[in-house]
C-alpha cells in the first residue's frame, strides 16, 4: 500500500517527562485520519514531528519517502512545500493583512509567478474559503472562525499533498465548527489531500475522518472507524465518546 506517512516506535521526551512512548502509525494516501486523546497527551507533538518542527528522540518517521529523523535542509524544504499545517490558533501573522498573510509564502517559495499571478492565486484561494471581502483586513479584525478559514486558505495556497489540522474546531461555536468540517471535506475532494486531524471534538471526527485513533499514555490505545470505536465495549473508550458528546 502507498503510505505517505510511516511512523514506527516514535519516542519523545520533554524535561524528564516522556510524552510519546512508542507510536506506530501508517497513513495511506488520501485518507483522513483523526487523532484523539486528552489534552496534553502529545497529539500536537506528534504532528509537529511530522513536519520537522520538533525532533523526536528515537524511532522512525518517514514522510513522503523522506526520513524526518535528521532531515537535510533540502528534504525539509521539500516536505514543507508538500505539507500544510493548520494551527490551533490559526497563527496568522498579526503584523500583516490577510492578503499579505496569504502571499507571504508564495513570494518566498518556489512558486514561480508574477505579482499578478500571486494576487490572482490569493483571491482564488480566499474565494474557496468564502473570505474575499476580508482580503485587506488585519487578523485582529477577524473572528475566530474567519481566522481559521484564513489559516486554512494560507495552507491551501501552496497546494499541499498532506494537511495537518491542529484542533480545527476548538473554541468555535457549533455552526462555525460545522462550516470548518465541511471545508475539510471540500478540500479533500477538490485537492486530493491526505489529512491528519487532531481533535477531541467527536462531531468533527464523525464528519471528517475515515479512521480514528486514540492516544493514551504515550501509546496508541486503540484505532478504528468512528462507528467501530463508538460501539466499543471498553468503558474508557465509551466514556471518551459520551463525555465528548455531552
Amino acid at each position, binding site marked *: 500500500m502507498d503510505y505517505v506517512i510511516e511512523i514506527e516506535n516514535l519516542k519523545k521526551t520533554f524535561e524528564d517527562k516522556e510524552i510519546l512512548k512508542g507510536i506506530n502509525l501508517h497513513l495511506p494516501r488520501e485518507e483522513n485520519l483523526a487523532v484523539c486523546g486528552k489534552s496534553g497527551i502529545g497529539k500536537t507533538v506528534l504532528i*509537529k514531528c511530522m513536519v520537522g518542527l520538533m525532533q523526536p528522540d528515537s524511532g522512525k518517521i518517514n514522510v513522503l519517502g523522506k526520513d524526518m529523523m535528521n532531515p537535510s535542509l533540502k528534504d525539509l524544504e521539500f516536505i*514543507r512545500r508538500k505539507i500544510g499545517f493548520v494551527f490551533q490558533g490559526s497563527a496568522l501573522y498579526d503584523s500583516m493583512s490577510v492578503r499579505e498573510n496569504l502571499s507571504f509564502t508564495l513570494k518566498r517559495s518556489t512558486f514561480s509567478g508574477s505579482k499578478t499571478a500571486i494576487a490572482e492565486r490569493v483571491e482564488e484561494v480566499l474565494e474557496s474559503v468564502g473570505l474575499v471581502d476580508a482580503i485587506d483586513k488585519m487578523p485582529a479584525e477577524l473572528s475566530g472562525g474567519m481566522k481559521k478559514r484564513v489559516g486554512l486558505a*494560507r495552507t491551501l495556497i501552496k497546494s499541499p499533498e498532506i494537511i495537518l489540522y491542529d484542533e480545527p474546531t476548538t473554541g468555535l461555536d457549533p455552526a462555525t465548527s460545522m462550516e470548518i468540517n465541511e471545508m475539510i471535506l471540500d478540500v479533500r475532494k477538490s485537492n486530493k489531500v491526505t489529512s491528519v486531524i487532531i481533535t477531541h471534538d467527536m462531531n468533527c471526527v464523525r464528519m471528517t475522518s475515515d479512521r480514528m485513533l486514540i492516544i493514551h499514555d504515550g501509546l496508541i490505545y486503540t484505532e478504528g472507524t468512528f462507528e467501530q470505536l463508538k460501539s466499543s465495549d471498553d468503558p474508557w473508550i465509551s466514556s471518551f465518546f459520551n463525555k465528548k458528546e455531552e
Partner: protein
Amino acid sequence: MNEVSKFRHTYNWLPESVVDLFIEVGELTRFTGRFFKELFRPPFEFNEFLYQSYIVGAKSLGLIGLTGFILGLVMTLQSRPVLIEFGAEAWLPGMVSVSIVTEIGPVITALICAGKIASQFGAVLGSMRVTEQIDAMEVSGVNPINYLVVTRVLATTLMVPLLVLYADAIALAGSYMAVNIHGNISATLFIFDVFDVLHFSDFLPAVVKTVFFGFMIGIIGCYKGYFAGYGTEGVGKAANTAVVSASLAVFLIDLIAVQVTHIIY
C-alpha cells in the same frame, strides 16, 4: 533523563543559576551562529529590513533626541561649577563634548535602545512564538531566522550607530544652550572648542562600539523572543529578560571597548 539533567546531576555542586547562565550563553552563541549563517543565505528580506530600520531608527529618534538634549544640557550645567573652581571654564565645551561623544552618548543611547527595542523584539517575537506564528512561518517554508531575526539585528546594528550620532549632535546642541544660559559664546567658537579636543581616536572607537551595541541589542532581543516560553507569561518574561540582558551586554561591550581602544591607540 536528557543531557541537561544529566549535566546538572553530575555537577550538582554548581549553583543552578550558574548552569542556567552557561546554557543561556551557549544558546545565545548558537543563535548568533545561526544569524550569521542566515545572513548570507538568500533571500534577503529587504522590505522587512527597511521596515525594521524605520521602527528602530526613525521611530526612536524622538525619544533619543529628547534624552540627548537633556543629557547635554544637564552635563554642561553640572560640570560648570567644578570647572570654574579650577578656572577652566573655557574647557567646558571640550570636556562635555569628549564625554558625550566617547562615552555618555553611546551608552545612554544604547541603554534606551535596549529598553525600547530589545523589549519590543522580545515581546513581538515572543508572542509570535507563543501563537505559533514562528512555527507557521517555518512550516510554510520561510526561514523565520532569515525573515524575523536577520532583518531586525541588521536594522539595530546599522541604526543604533546613527541614533548615537543623532544623540551626540543633539546633546552638543543642548550643551551649547547650557553654556549660553550663563555666559555668551558664539556657535562658531563653541563648535571650534568642541572639535578642538575631539580626535579620531575618540570619535572612531565610539562609533565602532555602537555598532556592537546595536548588534547585541538586536540579537539578544530576538533571542529572548525567539525562544520565549509558552503562555503570556513567557512573552512578558522574554521582553523583560531581553532588556536586562541587553543592558548588561552594553556595559560589557563598553568595558571591552575601552581597553581595546587603549591598546589600538
